[in-house]
Each structure stands twice: as structure tokens, then as C-alpha cells.
């Protein structure tokens, strides 16, 4: 066209116009017919060329898939039979009476038999295998494979959390031709396009039949579109029902049929077609639809499931099995009827399938429920290395550390806790907000995150974005700074007494204790465990506020806070995420471990792309950190956090700290066991007083959460070089013996010799303990 126009312009319009006029005069009717035919031909050619070029270069946008952490099964793992079964159900395994294929499991008295699915992890494929997992009590006793050989460790395929889809919100999972069940192909042809194998893109008989059926029933019962037309419509055209669009669709369908074989078109159709909606997310293709509706892979679906998916093609929202189960069931059984009529399945099979329920995975079981808070962290971490387009199109697989069981517990504990605290709180009419982050601090894995009361809300994520006064959560860092000078130990005494501090602006600051009394000379152990304000400020002023500010930044605060004396009592804003970093540095014995959600990324073809390795940075003196941690254990044993003791398993040693900001606006608790660290924040978004201390608010949520972790064991630290265990009298900080008064075993610098308590008789038991201490201490000094 443009070429012709160009030619016209260069040689002048007159000769061509003259020639056309001459033709027109000779036979006007024939001329018009010819001209119309020429225009039509040009149109058809252009459309055909367009559709073929577009289809040739087709590349579905495959949003990056995000996976949770895989479950690692090994003998000795603390996991019950029912927990494994629940975990398998969540991963879309089907409970059966006898395992016959991948993705199935069977539960018996003390064992679970299962067949895992093939899965490509970052470090290579893990082939599916038959496993027999035997339990004893609350532990995995043994794992054997199909040949009866012991399996030392088995990694299951991870739960899929969702996709990082882009603005147009098209989500899909591509299936390869060999992953498509033949039954699906047969059913699609039978229901949607029974002459698919014969026609060349259009099915005139089908259109006439549909028109006839629809007329007879006075409603749209059948569509006359072939699968090819539906593919064209979905792939190239908008949804308008105009004649021109219909014509264009027909032209394109024929063009595709001429160029490609039936299998290619069918494969494209199966990956392309729209099958559902979840909020802004459009479910495309049978691969994703299978996971979306059944939490299972396409290849594992049975007749009833396939019939339902085929039923959905006709109207994914009208027949939405979650919103309109009756309609969906009726349509599914209608589809089953067609399959019998067309001899695709036997009447008996269809009857059995029709008797089944829809089998749609429910919200609680469906782990593909979007995790907005965690996905927010995933996006933020990936943003540094991948552009949005790459994530939305390239079909990457992203492996994260999210632990589905812990995530579910965190959601439940926060929701329950907030309800309870709101009801008991200052303003029962106003729901409290909260946030939780759980990490495995030693490896820097963020394993769970709840961004607020409304778990599903994809917006303000309080773990990452709520900057709130940290209150007493900063106190351990004041003590750390003091221990690092070498002039102070847990046994050192300090005055918890009224003090007046001259501020830069000329004001005088006189901090009071929470209980409004001063406690006199107290050892640092007790001052920290009881969170005494006056003692802590006195210590911080002696050490230097700017030192404390520097330490806070080194341990995990993004920015170094201003060195105002009020910093010593937590007048610094921090997010729960930052506090998880700070407390992680303590729990890790002075090593800062950056927190990550994403472990690794692989390409669509399974090639390793990026890895986010574990990193360590020594940021504090291990001996000083161990003293701080010993006091944090006493927070829970004897101090402000002792109400946690009733909520934790009796034998579980944990360390932690309460935090309360002024006027009870923020309630914090940060604490850790040997494996897990959790930070809980409770308050109001607008800073209104919540009426809760750290102990009365966040602590109960923290303790019920951490107390429920099966895999948590007692916090402990192998004594750092230069430290030795000493029994201290909790009240006075004098050295004492086990069983004498309120004795606490803490690590102290070997050269510190706290004065002895008097008037306590050493018993035989104490002597024995002393001997063991000595041997233990001696051992570590070697």
C-alpha cells in the first residue's frame, strides 16, 4: 500500500486515475467486484502474514514462579506422621489407599508411604522416588526407598507460592506436549471442536449446528468456534463481538491451519486459553488451572478433574467452581455426558466421575494462596538484580526460604493474639495491628513474615515498612557496648537511682523506671533482665551514647541513629525487619548475617542463574555478646519476660527482650532459640497508645508462636575464648554456688573475680557441680 502510494506520488496521480476511470467506464459492475476482491485479498494476505509472523515469534510471558523452601526429610527429624501428611496435602499430594503414582501418599499406623514428584532444584534435578517414612513418637525414625534401602535424606518438591506477574496480570505454567494427558486432548475435541482433526480452521457445519441448537433451545448452548478460532481470539484479538472481528478471526484461523499442524495448534491452545481469575491474576492455560483449582499437576488429574477444566473453557467466571459450585458441577457432568456420547470414555467411568465432588482445593489447604508480605520481600531482594520485565516474562524459578508450616503458625498466632489483646486492651472497639517476622538466623533465612492483621492485604507491610520506636529492644546493645570495653561484666554493679542528664538544648532529662521505683545497686545481669531504665541510662552515659549508636548500626539498623541520651531507652525508630537483624547478630554470637528471602534463581531451562549465598560479618566481640545473651536468657527465666515461661515448653531455653515505647504505644518482643528468631510488634498504625507493654502484648504472641515450633531446641552457646562459667547470685552479682540462693550460671571473663557471697554452706551436690564446671571450662580452654 505504502509502496503504491509512493509510486503514485513520484509519477503523478493522473495516469493511474485515468486508467482506472477507463476501466470503470467499460464495465462498472465488474470493476467494483474486482476492486473489492483485490482489497479483500490484500486484507487476507496482510492478516495471514501478521498472524503467522506473530505466532512464529510467540513467546508466552511466563512470570517467574516463586517456591517455598523444600521439606527435607531425614531420620531424627522432629516431625510427626500427621505433620508430614498435612505438609504433603499442602503440596498437593493426594491421599490414597495404595500409592500408584507420583504426588500420592498413604498413611498407616506409624508410617507414611509416598511417591515424590520429579523436581528441578537449583543444584540439579531430584528424581521422584518411592519413600517409606516410619515414625517413632514425634520423630522420623527411618526412611527407606522402594528397594528397602535406607535413605539418609530426601528433599521433597517445594510448595509453589505464586508468580511475579506483571501489569497485565497474566499468569500461567507452561506444559510441554508430553505432559498433556491424552484424555484432555480427546475431551477438548469432543466438547469444543469435534471436527478439529478434519477442518481447516473453520467448521461451517459446526457453526450451522450450533446455530440450530441455540435456536431450538432459545439460548446460547453451543459455540461454533473451532479450537483454532478460540486460540486466535485469545491470543490476538480483544473480546468484542463485531462482524469485522469475527471475519478477521476466521482469516487468521485459516492462515494458522495452513501454516501449522494440528498438534502445534493444540499445544498452543492448552497453554494459552483463559480459565479463571483470582483478583487481578488471570489464570491462563491448563497447567496453571490444574494447580489453581486442584493444587496438583496436570498429568496427575483424573477424569472428573479434566472434565471440570474442559467445562470451564466455556465460561470461567460463570462456572467458577469456587463461587458457583452447583453450576460447575452441572456443567462438568454435562461434559462427561458428551464424552460418553462421543465414546471418549465408558459410561461406567463417566458415571463414577459424575458421582464425585468437585474436589477443589480449599483456601486453607491451598498454599498457592498469595503471600503478600513475603512476596514483597522477594520482590525487593530481586529488584537489585533483575528487572521487572525479566521477572514477568522469562519463566524463571525462584527458590525462597519460606517455611509453609511456620508461616501458617505465624499467621494464626498473630491473628489470635491480636483479637485477644484487642478485646482485653484499652480500646476494645479498635483492632490492634501487628507484625511478625521469623528467621533461621544462623543461615539468615527469613522463613515467615506476616505484614499485618489482614494477611491477604497486599499493601503496607509492617515488617519492612513500619518504623516504630524500638523502646527497650535497644537496651541489650547498651550492655554489649559496655562489655566490649572490658571494664564491665554481667557481675559489675551499677546504681539504679534517679539521675538528671543535661541535654544539648539545655533541658534536663530524668528518666524513671517502669515501676516508678529505683532499685539501688544492681548487677548488670539483673539490670538488663529486669529492663531497669535508670541503671541502663547510667551505664550508657558511662560508655558513651555515640558508641551505642554506632553499635546499633553495625548490628543491623539501616542508619546510625542520632546520639541523643534518650536513644539509650529506645528513642529510635526501627522496623521489625531491622530488629530481626540486630537480634540475629546477637543470637549469632557477634556475626551479622544478612537476611534473605530468596536463595537462588534458575532459568526456564533449569540452568542455575543466581544464588544469594549465606554471608557472615563479624560485628561484635563474641565474649561480650555471650554475656548479653546470658542476660537475655534471664529475661525469660527471671526478668520482664518471665510470663513467657508458662507458654514455652518447660525444657526450652530461649533468650529475648521485651520492648515498650513511651505511653505504651508500641509493644515489642524479640527473642530466639537455637534455631529460630522471631520479632513481634503490636500497636496502632497512627501511633495511638495501645495500652500494652512488651510483656503484656507482643510477648504472649511470641511465646505461643516459638513454643509451637517442633524444630526449636534450647538456646546455648559454647563458651567463647576467655570466658568461663560462673554461678552468680542474681540479686547481688556476687559469686556463689549452685543451689545457694538465686544462683544463675553465666559466662564471665576468666580474669573477672566477682566477690563471693558469704554465709552459704557448700553441699556435696555443689562440689560435684563445681567439679563438672571446672572440667567443662577446662575442656574449652584447651
Amino acid at each position, binding site marked *: 500500500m505504502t509502496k503504491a502510494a509512493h509510486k503514485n506520488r513520484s509519477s503523478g496521480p493522473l495516469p493511474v486515475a485515468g486508467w482506472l476511470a477507463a476501466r470503470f467506464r467499460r464495465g462498472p459492475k465488474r470493476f467494483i467486484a474486482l476492486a473489492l476482491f483485490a482489497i479483500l485479498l490484500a486484507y487476507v494476505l496482510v492478516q495471514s502474514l501478521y498472524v503467522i509472523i506473530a505466532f512464529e515469534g510467540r513467546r508466552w510471558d511466563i512470570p517467574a514462579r516463586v517456591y517455598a523452601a523444600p521439606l*527435607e526429610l531425614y531420620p531424627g527429624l522432629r516431625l510427626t506422621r500427621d505433620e508430614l501428611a498435612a505438609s504433603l496435602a499442602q503440596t498437593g499430594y493426594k491421599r490414597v489407599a495404595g500409592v500408584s503414582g507420583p504426588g500420592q501418599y498413604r498413611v498407616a499406623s506409624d508410617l507414611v508411604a509416598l511417591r515424590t514428584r520429579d523436581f528441578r532444584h537449583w543444584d540439579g534435578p531430584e528424581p521422584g522416588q518411592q519413600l517409606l517414612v516410619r515414625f517413632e513418637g514425634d520423630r522420623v525414625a527411618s526412611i527407606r526407598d522402594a528397594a528397602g534401602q535406607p535413605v*539418609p535424606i530426601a528433599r521433597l518438591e517445594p510448595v509453589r507460592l505464586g508468580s511475579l506477574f506483571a501489569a497485565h496480570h497474566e499468569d500461567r505454567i507452561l506444559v510441554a506436549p508430553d505432559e498433556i494427558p491424552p484424555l484432555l486432548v480427546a475431551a477438548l475435541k469432543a466438547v469444543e471442536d469435534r471436527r478439529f482433526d478434519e477442518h481447516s480452521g473453520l467448521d461451517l457445519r459446526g457453526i450451522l449446528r450450533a446455530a440450530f441448537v441455540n435456536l431450538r433451545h432459545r439460548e446460547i448452548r453451543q459455540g461454533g468456534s473451532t479450537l483454532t478460532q478460540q486460540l486466535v481470539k485469545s491470543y490476538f484479538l480483544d473480546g468484542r463481538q463485531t462482524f469485522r472481528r469475527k471475519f478477521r478471526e476466521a482469516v487468521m484461523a485459516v492462515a494458522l491451519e495452513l501454516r501449522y499442524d494440528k498438534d502445534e495448534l493444540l499445544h498452543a491452545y492448552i497453554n494459552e486459553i483463559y480459565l479463571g481469575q483470582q483478583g487481578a491474576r488471570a489464570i491462563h492455560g491448563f497447567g496453571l488451572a490444574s494447580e489453581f483449582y486442584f493444587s496438583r499437576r496436570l498429568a496427575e488429574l483424573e477424569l472428573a478433574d479434566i472434565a471440570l477444566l474442559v467445562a470451564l473453557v466455556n465460561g470461567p467466571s460463570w462456572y467458577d467452581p469456587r463461587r458457583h459450585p452447583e453450576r460447575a458441577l452441572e456443567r462438568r457432568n454435562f461434559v462427561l455426558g458428551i464424552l460418553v456420547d462421543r465414546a471418549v470414555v465408558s459410561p461406567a467411568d463417566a458415571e463414577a466421575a459424575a458421582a464425585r465432588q468437585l474436589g477443589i482445593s480449599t483456601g486453607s489447604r491451598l498454599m498457592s494462596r498469595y503471600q503478600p508480605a513475603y512476596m514483597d520481600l522477594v520482590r525487593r531482594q530481586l529488584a537489585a538484580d533483575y528487572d521487572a520485565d525479566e521477572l514477568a516474562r522469562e519463566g524463571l524459578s525462584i527458590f525462597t526460604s519460606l517455611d509453609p508450616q511456620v508461616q501458617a503458625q505465624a499467621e494464626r498466632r498473630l491473628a489470635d493474639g491480636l483479637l485477644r489483646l484487642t478485646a482485653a486492651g484499652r480500646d476494645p472497639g479498635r483492632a490492634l495491628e501487628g507484625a511478625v517476622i521469623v528467621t533461621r538466623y544462623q543461615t539468615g533465612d527469613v522463613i515467615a513474615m506476616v505484614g499485618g492483621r489482614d494477611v491477604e492485604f497486599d499493601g503496607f507491610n509492617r515488617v519492612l515498612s513500619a518504623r516504630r520506636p524500638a523502646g527497650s529492644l535497644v537496651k541489650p546493645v547498651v550492655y554489649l557496648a559496655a562489655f566490649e570495653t572490658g571494664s564491665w561484666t554481667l557481675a559489675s554493679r551499677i546504681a539504679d537511682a534517679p539521675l538528671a542528664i543535661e541535654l544539648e538544648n539545655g533541658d534536663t532529662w530524668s528518666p524513671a523506671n517502669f515501676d516508678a521505683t529505683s532499685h539501688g545497686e544492681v548487677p548488670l545481669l539483673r539490670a538488663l533482665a529486669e529492663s531497669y531504665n535508670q541503671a541502663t541510662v547510667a551505664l550508657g552515659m558511662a560508655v558513651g551514647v555515640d558508641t551505642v549508636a554506632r553499635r546499633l548500626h553495625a548490628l543491623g539498623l539501616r542508619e546510625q541513629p542520632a546520639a541523643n541520651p534518650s536513644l539509650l531507652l529506645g528513642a529510635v525508630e526501627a522496623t521489625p525487619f531491622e530488629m530481626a537483624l540486630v537480634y540475629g547478630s546477637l543470637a549469632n*554470637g557477634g556475626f551479622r548475617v544478612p537476611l534473605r528471602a530468596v536463595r537462588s534463581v534458575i532459568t526456564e531451562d533449569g540452568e542455575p542463574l543466581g544464588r544469594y549465598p549465606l554471608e557472615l560479618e563479624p560485628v561484635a566481640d563474641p565474649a561480650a555478646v555471650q554475656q548479653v545473651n546470658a542476660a537475655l536468657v534471664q529475661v525469660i527465666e527471671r526478668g520482664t519476660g518471665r510470663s513467657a515461661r508458662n507458654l514455652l515448653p518447660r*525444657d526450652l531455653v530461649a533468650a529475648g527482650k521485651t520492648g515498650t515505647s513511651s505511653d505504651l504505644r508500641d509493644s515489642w518482643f524479640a527473642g530466639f532459640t537455637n534455631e529460630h528468631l522471631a520479632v513481634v510488634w503490636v500497636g496502632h498504625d497512627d501511633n495511638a497508645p495501645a495500652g500494652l507493654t512488651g510483656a503484656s502484648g507482643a510477648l504472649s504472641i511470641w511465646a505461643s508462636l516459638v513454643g509451637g515450633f517442633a524444630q526449636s531446641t534450647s538456646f546455648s552457646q559454647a563458651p567463647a575464648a576467655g570466658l568461663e562459667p560462673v554461678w552468680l547470685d542474681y540479686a547481688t552479682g556476687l559469686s556463689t554456688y549452685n543451689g545457694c540462693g538465686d544462683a544463675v550460671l553465666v559466662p564471665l571473663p576468666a580474669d573477672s573475680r566477682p566477690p563471693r557471697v558469704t554465709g552459704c554452706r557448700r553441699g556435696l551436690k555443689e562440689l560435684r*557441680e563445681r567439679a563438672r564446671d571446672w572440667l567443662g571450662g577446662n575442656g574449652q580452654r584447651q
Partner: protein
Amino acid sequence: MRTLLLFVTALAVAACAPLPVSRDDSGAGAGGDETVSGPGSATAPGPAAVLLAQGRTQLAGGEYPAAAATLERALRIEPGDPWLWLELARVHHVSGDQRQAEAHARKAMSLAGGDRGVRDAAEKLLADIRRH
């Protein structure tokens, strides 16, 4: 009492020969009642030991990122095992990241308690790192 038991386990670890593959040392990081050698697993090597061996093979074969990933996997199971941290330090050392190598070796040292085998190995590695 609980804390005391921790120090006692340190002694137990010291008494052990430095055989990282068969030794069950998660007790060093656990409360006294934590005997991890679960029923049925008395003879078979534990999962962390299997992964440590795999990580060593990968390290020997020059597959550094794979070795690191395998050792991290092991650490998720046994975060208190100094031998795993030490092996990860070796991976960093060989692959040229001396800063991480040193940090990991120090971490191994901090978990060693009375285990002289770990301490000596960590000292030796730290000396190698400093020579770089």
C-alpha cells in the same frame, strides 16, 4: 541446671575424636535431653554428614557454588556443627573470597567449644587465609 548441662556437653564434645562425619554433635547446641541419634539411625550416617561428604566432593571437583549450596543445606539441618562452617570457609578460601573465608572460619571456631580438632583445623585455615 539447663545451662549447666550445656557446659557438660562441651566436655563430651572435647572427649570425642575429631571425626566429623560420624560424630553426632548437635548435642553441643542443644539442651541436655537432646540426644539426636534417633531410633533406627544408629549406624547410618546422618543427613548433615551425607551432605558434608557431598559438599567435599563438589569442592574437590571445583564446583564452588554447588559445594556452598550443599553445605548451606547441611547447615539448615545442623547449624551448630563447626565442621560444616569450616568446610564452607574452605569453599570461600579456594574460590577466592578470603573475607568470607575468614568470617566462616571464625564462626567455626566460635562453635568449637572444647573440640580441639576443629580448633586446630580452623587455626590452620586462618593461617592459610592470612598468607593470601
